């Protein structure tokens, strides 16, 4: 059993754990942040793209003569004009498991989705460039579009990529416990076998700041300077240098303030490469800002998956086996660096979740279709996995006539570390405690009484639903190597440097796109060195200043990056003590950091030196330094996890009310009991929870990217793509548990994705609980209001 306690807004002399004012806020709240679109340069040109108007076709001709003749247009380039290398993401897996496919920066011979970039147009202003784009003439030899996973897999289907038979990019069967079929057969006789067939809607991660880039060539530095909003600056540099045939030193990627990414900016975009290539070719600065229509139709999407899952239970409700076949509709291309494997591999590995599962079989596939390609999106597959698992739990409880929370209690992992059937070791968490507390909160708040008072009421239809789940965070090199990526993200390197005034600059290879790293990383450094956070500056997002980094995704920043800044800080502290020991003529062991910007003696704490005094010696009085200690004050440290990472966990409890007259779904109460280990900054954690839950509710009830049968996107604006607003998202009550991670430097676990992961399952279970008298179960998302209406009316058609 793990120790749990409320972290509260404690300070206790330490910065970690205190919800200090965010250091990012003054500039952001005053409108003085600097985002890509705020950047302007002398002679700046504006780029947009000629994009495919059909979903699947061979290009038979591109005529840009009228484009180039359009007033204000400076240049227009096709793939042939720029001659760029392709973007190809690779997994180190055999051909029957993974088929690599090239994504050209600009489409050359073929287009594979509406919105695919074919040519880049550069003009003097953002209006003229659209006039130019309109003037392009592209001729197509149209092919039949492949518009669903089932169509992609149908015998004789047209191929989206000639090299991918059966339109299948990934087909992996990672686990298959011996004898699993017998377990199912036995459970059919003596327990219960339940099945979920579910389809989840295609979604857009939808950062409010759309993608964008400003690029220019600097003759003095012999460098292409690329300011772009990306979660992975070093990987953008690598792809840019390869596509353009430059050395990496000739490309500098920097990242200004970012208005969200959620994974969509965690992959290299074709447009950012093309815009940089145009700037390189023209030797003039070029800006591309993705407009909202392109962001909704041609950016990386996510989440469209189909599950056929069966689970076997014994008569007491213990889960015995899980058998899952899942297909992910990855759209037209494999994203870099993750590949089309991102969703099926994640789902295959994480499906068992928080439950003690003895037998497991899974097949995960990624199919290619003529839709905009997909990439990672906050939670990656786990919103779907958890939804399917939690539906299985509910169905098993129904089949066995047990309470669904009680059934979960009997199955959650309680003894740690736990080695799962999926070959993953789970570090300690509070699965049972979070479940108990969440149920208790809803009970204490009276929601069970509200539900029972209205049982079979003609007026109020109320349901309560839960999801209990964990979230693997702190993926290090070990975990990503197991996925067999050719680019293995994992470690982070941090450099810390103290200046002559005794303040520090710390680099991190992570990349905040709204997560408050300037505050939270500074809290970690300040504690390790005994500095005020205002004496700590965090530097991210500059490939010239940062040795190397993998950016921010997979809830890795605080676990991996936070550990690296802590380790570097400790090293610098040792250097400061060594210099102080020499100058104060004492042993190193007799020195310690004083917690207030200096070093003191252990035996005479009133004797010591300030960091500023030590730094003065290190830089300006170097002749006073001890033998063997070089001038300057800097340290480098790295951090990696070779094991399976650390698991955050949570239980979400949701109360919904359905409207018989309209099928409307209202969330009356949302309770989240989360455990991310030591919360560096509790309010930042709560912000992560609330934002994630909003995106999860969006997936459960609102958002879906639709296409017509010819492949035309049906959601080019917010009128059609139904992102929920503040009016649809309830207040969320958050309760904290704390099971510290044993191997991260601060005991923190990742907190970035849990909200998104848990919300769809909890909402879906609550809606189904409200429908309990109808005989209808809804397993697809987003939940259609008509389905709810018909279920309550008794006219539901499957």
């Amino acid at each position, binding site marked *: 059993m793990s120790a749990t306690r409320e972290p509260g807004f404690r300070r206790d002399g330490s910065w970690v754990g205190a919800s200090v004012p965010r250091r990012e806020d003054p500039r952001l709240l005053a409108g003085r942040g600097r985002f890509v679109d705020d950047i302007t340069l002398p002679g700046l040109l504006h780029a947009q793209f000629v994009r495919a108007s059909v979903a699947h076709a061979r290009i038979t001709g591109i005529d840009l003569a009228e484009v180039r003749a359009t007033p204000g247009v400076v240049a227009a380039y096709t793939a042939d004009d720029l001659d760029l290398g392709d973007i190809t993401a690779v997994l180190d897996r055999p051909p029957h498991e993974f088929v690599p496919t090239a994504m050209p920066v600009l489409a050359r011979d073929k287009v594979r989705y509406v919105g695919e970039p074919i040519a880049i147009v550069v003009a003097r202003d*953002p*209006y003229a460039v*659209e*006039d130019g784009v*309109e003037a392009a003439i592209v001729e197509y030899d149209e092919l039949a579009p492949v518009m669903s996973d089932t169509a992609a897999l149908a015998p004789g289907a047209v191929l989206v990529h000639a090299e991918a038979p059966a339109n299948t990019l990934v087909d992996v069967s990672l686990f298959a416990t011996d004898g699993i079929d017998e377990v199912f057969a036995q459970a059919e006789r003596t327990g219960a076998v339940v099945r979920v067939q579910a389809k989840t809607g295609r979604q857009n991660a939808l950062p409010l700041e759309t993608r964008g880039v400003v690029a220019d060539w600097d003759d003095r530095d012999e460098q292409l300077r690329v300011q772009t909003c990306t979660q992975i600056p070093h990987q953008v540099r690598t792809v840019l240098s390869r596509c353009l045939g430059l050395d990496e030193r000739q490309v500098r990627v920097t990242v200004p303030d970012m208005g969200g990414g959620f994974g969509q900016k965690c992959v290299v975009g074709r447009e950012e490469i093309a815009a940089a290539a145009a700037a390189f070719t023209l030797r003039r600065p070029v800006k591309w800002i993705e*407009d*909202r*229509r392109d962001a909704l139709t041609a950016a990386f999407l996510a989440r469209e998956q189909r599950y056929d899952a069966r689970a076997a239970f014994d008569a007491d409700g213990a889960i015995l086996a899980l058998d899952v076949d899942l297909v992910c509709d990855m759209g037209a291309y494999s994203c870099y660096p993750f590949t089309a494997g991102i969703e099926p591999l994640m789902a295959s590995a994480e499906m068992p979740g928080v439950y003690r599962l003895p037998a497991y079989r899974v097949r995960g596939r990624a199919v290619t279709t003529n839709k905009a390609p997909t990439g990672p999106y906050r939670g990656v597959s786990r919103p779907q996995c958890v939804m399917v698992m939690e539906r299985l739990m509910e169905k098993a409880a129904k089949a066995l006539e047990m309470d669904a929370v009680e059934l979960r209690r009997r199955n959650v992992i309680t003894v740690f570390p736990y080695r799962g059937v999926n070959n993953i070791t789970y570090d300690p968490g509070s699965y049972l405690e979070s479940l108990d507390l969440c149920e208790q909160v809803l009970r204490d708040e009276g929601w069970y009484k509200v539900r029972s008072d209205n049982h079979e009421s003609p007026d109020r239809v109320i349901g309560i639903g839960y999801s209990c789940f964990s979230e693997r965070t702190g993926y290090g090199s070990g975990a990503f190597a197991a996925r067999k990526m050719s680019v293995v993200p994992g470690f982070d390197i941090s450099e810390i440097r103290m200046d002559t005034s005794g303040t520090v600059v710390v680099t991190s290879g992570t990349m905040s796109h709204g997560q408050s790293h300037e505050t939270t990383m500074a809290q970690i450094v300040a504690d390790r060195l005994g500095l005020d956070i205002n004496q700590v500056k965090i530097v991210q997002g500059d490939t010239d200043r940062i040795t190397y980094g993998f950016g921010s995704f997979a809830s890795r920043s605080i676990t991996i990056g936070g550990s690296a800044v802590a380790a570097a800080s400790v090293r610098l502290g040792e250097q400061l003590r060594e210099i102080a020991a020499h100058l104060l003529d004492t042993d190193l062991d007799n020195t310690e950091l004083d917690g207030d910007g200096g070093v003191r003696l252990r035996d005479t704490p009133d004797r010591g030196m300030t960091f500023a005094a030590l730094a003065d010696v290190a830089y300006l009085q170097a002749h006073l330094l001890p033998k063997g200690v070089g001038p300057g004050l800097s340290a480098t440290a790295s951090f990696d996890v070779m094991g399976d990472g650390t698991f955050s966990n949570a239980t979400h409890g949701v109360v919904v009310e359905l409207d018989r*007259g*309209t*099928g*409307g779904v209202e969330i009356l109460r949302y309770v989240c009991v989360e455990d991310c280990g030591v919360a560096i900054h509790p309010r930042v954690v709560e912000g992560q929870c609330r934002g994630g839950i909003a995106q999860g509710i969006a997936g459960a*009830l*609102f958002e879906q990217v*639709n296409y017509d049968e010819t492949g035309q996107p049906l959601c*080019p*604006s917010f*009128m059609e793509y*139904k992102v*929920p*607003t503040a*009016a*649809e998202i309830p207040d969320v009550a958050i309760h904290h548990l704390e099971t510290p991670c044993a191997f991260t430097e601060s005991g923190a676990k990742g907190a970035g994705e849990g909200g998104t992961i848990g919300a769809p399952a909890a909402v879906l279970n609550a809606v189904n609980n409200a429908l309990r008298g109808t005989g209808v179960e809804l397993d697809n998302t987003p939940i*259609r*209001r*008509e389905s709810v*209406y*018909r279920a309550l*009316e008794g*006219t539901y058609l499957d």
Partner: protein
Amino acid sequence: MKPAAFTYHRPGSVAGAVGLLRDLGDDAKLIAGGQSLVAMMNFRLARPEHLIDIRRVPGLDQIRRDGDSLRIGALVTHHAVEIASLGAEFAVLSRAMRWVGHLPIRTRGTIGGSLAHADATAEWCLLAVLLDAVIVAEGPAGRRSVAAADFFHGVFTTALEPDELIVEVVFPRPAPRAALTEFAERRGDFAIVAAAVDLDLPRIVLGGVATVPFVAPVSGIGRPGDQYHSRLAEEAAAAVRVRDEPGVSAHYRRGLVRTLVTRACAEAEEIR
């Protein structure tokens, strides 16, 4: 999402605007709040060569009582109506405005613009038909009045001549027992179905079921109460002619009509 080039005009009077409309013909478009037009221009679905901005034309932004009737200038915003004190006789207009988009839309969009745009689910279009509004338009030949019942011709088409502009909308009679309600998945969306009722006539006008505001035939007045409301709702639901559409079946849409008419009736009764 940047509009094609256009020439911008800002006339100082209604006569000036009419003159520009007459001279520029089909290439010109009026703009007031721009809440529909600008989005269409940004998508380049609308590409007027001339934009005539009437927002600063004086005298069109007044709300005033005139005997039994209420006169609303064409440039009055939804928000101005929402916060106006119109008394019990016309409170239905203020309450209905809460259904119009979101606050920023309501502070810019105008009654004249909404009626001229003629979206069949727009609140002003339903209210105009429900309450027998008279739309006053001015053209080269002077002013004329068009009854709301004759105003809407089809999808985004009205009785307005190309060289006419709406100057005023007259609601000729108090409607103390009237209400409008809607259903959409998100607050502020265009309604899947909108229902407006005036129990004193009685009359039911529906949005989202036809290309123009649909007046559902009802069989006369009844005794206030749930039974009466249910009867009206059933009659309205039976009268609509709708087809299955992706995401919304005819059955569901008819069900929404039934629900929303019932609720609008209840609200109209309750607020007295």
